[in-house]
């Protein structure tokens, strides 16, 4: 049960924070046709492919006893794992929503500029028209978060009753040869994913 709570806390917080950071940036990159955005999109697409263990290593070095962010005391904590997850998942959120907005906005642009809608209202309308896609993007972020092993084990240390999540527990049980336990945890993980997907799909039907 403890593992489940830690897993859910890490996954929910990291996916929501990634969405809150990534969504506005993805919309901005998609809707503003300026040269610097093209460069930023290339950088973002590169970051989408960042190996989780590289991200984990980076966070470990930053938060470790000799690292520049050691005073934050995030190493071997759930909060540190969330930070590592956010660094991994935010580029994925941006990279998923940006092409959709790039396609959507030109369809709306003439209408909105013709009736002199403010920039702020344009952004609200873009979000409104992307509701369905935003839910899908969140599901991608959540799925990525709940399935993560490399970065979370490096930053969290998989400490029993503290930072051990389901994926690191599956890895540990497999290493110990306890395949039954590992399999059971795997099935629970898939069930959690299924429940979240069902809830999101019901929300999308309502949209």
């Amino acid at each position, binding site marked *: 049960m403890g593992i489940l709570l830690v897993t859910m806390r890490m996954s929910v917080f990291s996916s929501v924070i990634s969405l809150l950071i990534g969504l506005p940036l993805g919309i901005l990159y998609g809707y503003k046709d300026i040269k610097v955005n093209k460069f930023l999109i290339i950088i973002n697409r590169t970051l989408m492919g960042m190996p989780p263990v590289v991200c984990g290593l980076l966070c470990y070095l930053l938060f470790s006893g000799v690292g520049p962010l050691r005073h934050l005391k995030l190493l071997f904590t759930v909060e540190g794992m969330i930070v590592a997850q956010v660094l991994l998942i935010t580029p994925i959120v941006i990279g998923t929503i940006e092409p959709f907005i790039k396609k959507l906005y030109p*369809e*709306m642009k*003439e*209408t*909105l*500029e*013709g*009736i*002199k*809608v403010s920039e702020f*209202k344009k952004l609200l*309308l873009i979000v*409104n*028209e992307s*509701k369905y896609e935003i839910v899908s993007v969140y599901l991608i972020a959540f799925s990525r978060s709940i399935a993560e092993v490399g970065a979370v084990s490096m930053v969290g240390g998989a400490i029993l009753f503290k930072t051990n999540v389901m994926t690191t527990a599956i890895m540990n049980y497999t290493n110990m040869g306890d395949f039954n336990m590992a399999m059971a945890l795997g099935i629970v993980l898939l069930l959690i994913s299924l429940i979240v997907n069902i809830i999101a799909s019901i929300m999308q039907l309502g949209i």
Partner: protein
Amino acid sequence: MINFGKIKKTYNGQVVLDIDNFSIEENKTYVITGSNGSGKSTLAKIIANLIPDDNNIVKSLNLEDKYLIGYLAQKPYVFDMNLEKNILISNNDKNKCESLIKKFSLEHLRGKSAKKFSGGEQQKMSLARFMMKDYDIVIFDEPTSAMDENSKKTAVDIIEEYTKNKTMIMITHDLPCVEHIADYIIKMDDGKIYDRISRSR
């Protein structure tokens, strides 16, 4: 009098618009007609400052410092919201919204997503949304193309009432339906104006 001078527009090396000395009088209605690809919509978008002409002449006039210019696209975007919310995008005045819904006979569409309206219903809603604001220069690009004959006549009457004391430019293929409200009829072909007829209303 608003003098635009020479308006030229080139797309991919092809000249799509080339008008010498284009000008319009304030508070007059101009109806522009012509074949497909004659440059009518391009001219309308340049005047509305949505796209630049080749020499940025229209932008350099800074018309938007002096006039509020409204442009209604040929295929206005319809948002995934109900009727009232779509109309209120332009302006939050709920009383005006109700009055326009009644004028355009759109009451039966309440509660549905505007994405599910027919083409004619979407066009009426877009006109209502446009009229929520009081523009000085009004540019309509085929505002009634998807409507049936009765709806067209009603819409043109509403447009005539709305554009009293405004400058209006209307692009249309249905000249008989709107010529009675025109002060000038401009005929275009191949990116040029070949006829400009003055009418008394």
